[in-house]
């Protein structure tokens, strides 16, 4: 077998950037104005976590779980799988994440908010970034707003917001809830990098930051998680 070192990143890219971004344009056209509802729901979650932390993680799980399943079905399977056979593996991972989020929300001992520390504040920043500025990356990259990626509609912002919200919480479940989102960020960031999209950097930086934060969170003694 030829050494992996002989392959470049773009050797694994199966489609052109034009085709990739048109997937989001088609998704947005088909689902508008659902975007308003998903973004409002995301903002409501952030406010709930900030103002009424008691049952916030229950509602976080109850909202995020169907959104992960919806993105898996409506985008990964209905659109992205048409140009990338890797979605045959990614979509089940998204469905699994939906089940994990739901289980963590309703089972005893699920993630719970604790004292606000540097990790949770960084998580809040990541969640807000995934909700508000992320769709504007389309404009910043020279694409029309019709190709924007929106929380609850497209995978990347959905994943980033999920990671951010999870980092605000504590508990053993985080070790189960974070790997799939982090792996997706790595996959998507490398895909964007192969397409020579500057947007790769915020995704990869977000994933890198989240990995460090998650490691910090999980390394904390159980009583402080």
């Amino acid at each position: 077998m030829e050494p992996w070192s002989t392959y470049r990143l773009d050797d694994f890219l199966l489609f052109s950037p034009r085709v990739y971004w048109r997937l989001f344009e088609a998704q947005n056209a088909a689902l508008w104005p659902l975007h308003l509802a998903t973004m409002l729901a995301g903002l409501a979650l952030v406010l709930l976590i900030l103002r009424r932390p008691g049952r916030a993680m229950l509602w976080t799980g109850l909202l995020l779980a169907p959104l992960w399943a919806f993105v898996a079905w409506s985008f990964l399977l209905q659109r992205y799988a048409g140009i990338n056979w890797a979605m045959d593996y990614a979509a089940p991972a998204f469905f699994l994440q939906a089940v994990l989020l739901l289980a963590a929300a309703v089972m005893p001992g699920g993630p719970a908010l604790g004292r606000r520390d540097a990790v949770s504040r960084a998580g809040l920043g990541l969640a807000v970034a995934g909700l508000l500025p992320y769709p504007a990356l389309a404009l910043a990259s020279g694409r029309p707003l019709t190709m924007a990626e929106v929380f609850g509609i497209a995978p990347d912002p959905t994943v980033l917001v999920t990671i951010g919200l999870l980092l605000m919480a504590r508990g053993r479940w985080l070790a189960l809830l974070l790997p799939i989102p982090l792996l997706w960020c790595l996959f998507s960031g490398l895909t964007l990098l192969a397409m020579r999209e500057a947007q790769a950097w915020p995704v990869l930086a977000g994933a890198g930051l989240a990995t460090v934060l998650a490691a910090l969170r999980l390394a904390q003694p159980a009583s402080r998680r």
Partner: protein
Amino acid sequence: MATAALGTAMLALPPGRALAQPTPLARAIPSSGEMMPAVGLGSWITFNVGNDPALQAECTAVMAAFFAGGGHMIDSSPMYGSSQAVIGRGLAALGRPAALFSAEKVWTSAGSNGPAQIDETRRLWGVERFDLLQVHNLLGWEAHLDTLFAMKAAGRLRYVGITTSEGRRHDLVEQIMARQPLDFVQLSYNPVDREAEQRLLPLAAARGIAVIVNRPFQQGALTRRLEGAPLPAFAGEIGATSWAQLILKFILAEPAVTVAIPATTRVDHVRENLAAASGPLPDRELRGRIAAHLGAL
């Protein structure tokens, strides 16, 4: 739907343009003597457009221009996402052109999965049998070659081949070429990637194996690098009006090469590529100058 796609495709062709084009260069497939136009059509990345109807129609227009310009070989693979289905739609919209030379691949590590994958590929193309089936990147090559040779013996396949790209596993490619009764080998070759000249192209010539050149523009990286750079004056000596034509003429001037398969999403580019196979080709001295010039840029 098919009629609409065909209409869109034909609208992309100026009336009479195809008739005005000269007959492109053709090379003989050594194992049969069958003549093959020297510029084919690849589908890596370019035809992987998923379910996007507008982009599917663009691909059909590219195929229409390709056949109108005298092209025959279209090449794809199960690895190329939706490309096979897009080709199948295009062929149906164009009324299944008789000129088609269908080149496909088997790409699965398990030999036992090969026949089912080939059947699925055939269904996607909408053809009764393929002209050429190749073992993609040598994946599971021993078992797949057994399958392909058996299909050829049974009259369910005309030609058998293997593929590699970007210079990978040339040692194994050479061994297989030396020992197996291959009709085709597919590899990467262009003015800045000439490794195949050392052993594979001479061996192909000696063994009577047709050579398909993939990624002539290094997946567009080479032509992107040359964007904005002025064509050298010597390009005019062989009638090359673009970097793409100069590169293709360099490749086609290699006698061991049977067909090059550039991939494109644009009708003007497919015409430009086909035109490279018309008119004079560079001699040995000029090929050296082309390679040196591109290597220096």
